[in-house]
């Protein structure tokens, strides 16, 4: 059984659960609890373990879509899932208090995935908060880690086509990067 684990990470309210619902072929397994922290993000529920969706590619092959809780206090769930992951869609809501800080914190935590080209940043709610612009995200990534170019897209997490473009880009970037590094290794041997 081949599995391809894709994580959906990002702060609370960024649209992780919605993004998975847009992509999954099965009814999404959700683990929502009432949100006690309405001061941070005013939404009634929050994911406390994971969201889980699937895309079936064949009898023995599935893409597993895991949404992980946004709050740092659940980082043990991040740890459980990250080593299995091919890549990660990092969703950031542009109207969060400091989206670029959120970006840097997640990139730091998921540095392994980052170095494999396994992260795509998907910015949500940029129609509600017009700044920061996507170019500022790219500049923040470049300042954080020169030489790494991470795709940054604006998305509506409810839009299946946009989420598919995001996922295809993620896999394409991982495959291309691995091919280039593989070729460099061959050349140096």
């Amino acid at each position, binding site marked *: 059984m*081949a599995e391809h684990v894709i994580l959906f990470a990002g702060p609370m309210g960024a649209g992780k659960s919605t993004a998975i619902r847009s992509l999954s072929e099965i009814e999404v397994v959700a683990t929502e609890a009432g949100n006690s922290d309405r001061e941070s993000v005013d939404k009634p529920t929050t994911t406390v373990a994971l969201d889980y969706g699937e*895309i079936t590619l064949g009898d023995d092959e599935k893409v597993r879509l895991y949404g992980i809780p946004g709050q740092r206090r659940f980082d043990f769930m991040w740890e459980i899932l990250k080593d299995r992951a091919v890549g990660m869609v990092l969703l950031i809501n542009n109207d969060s208090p400091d989206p670029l800080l959120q970006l840097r914190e997640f990139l730091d935590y998921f540095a392994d995935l980052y170095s494999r080209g396994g992260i795509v940043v998907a910015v949500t709610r940029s129609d509600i908060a017009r700044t920061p612009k996507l170019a500022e995200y790219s500049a923040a990534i470049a300042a954080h880690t020169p030489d790494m170019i991470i795709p940054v897209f604006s998305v509506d997490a409810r839009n299946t086509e946009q989420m598919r473009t995001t996922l295809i880009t993620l896999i*394409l970037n991982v495959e291309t990067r691995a091919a280039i590094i593989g070729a460099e290794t061959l050349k140096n041997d």
Partner: protein
Amino acid sequence: MTDASGKSLETVTGDDAPAEGTPPVSTPAPTLHSGNGWDDAALALHSIQQMNAPMLVMLEPEGCPPVYIDLPRRAFHWRSAMEEFPLEPSSVRIVTEAVAVDAPTRFRSAGRSLDKLLWAIGQSAFQGNPAPWLRPGERYRLTSWPNFTELNHTFDHMRMTAHIGNAPLSASELAAAATSDPTAVQRMINAYSLLGILKVSEGSPATPAINAPDQTKPTGGFLARLRSRWGL
């Protein structure tokens, strides 16, 4: 706002026209006489962006409503949908106007992302030949990815982009590495150059990627099966 011939743009009306008149300042654009008006427009837009000066630009393709570009806000205003973008207008009238960097907007709406327009112009101009400001043999690497969720793109564009996102390549190297049509490669590079998302280098050693196109697939063709699942 007037063009080089002195014709007033106040005759242009519509929801996307500037909300108020502006002093007449104009810059005649160079002419390439290729038959595609976007060549001149692309060249003008490239020059203006190189100057990094805050400007408003009006582009009026033959037979189409004018397009207003608000460079400081990286936005454009056009009454038509992008599906109506003319691929080969015989001419494009170009009018520019310098504005203060913090000048209030002249437009009633926030407009659309300028990248959409630059992508369309860059794809259409120069008939797949290198843009005049690009030099043969130079290598390109992305400084940031284009926002594919808003651009009218193909899967081939994504593949090519992934290559220059991870290694500097010349147009011919990219065509070989991505096994893509050289004209499509050049159109994309022209567009990305206009979008300002390329870092140009010269004389760097050839990257191994060009000798090993798609040899290593750690995910075993996973992407191909996923695209097939989605009917893409």
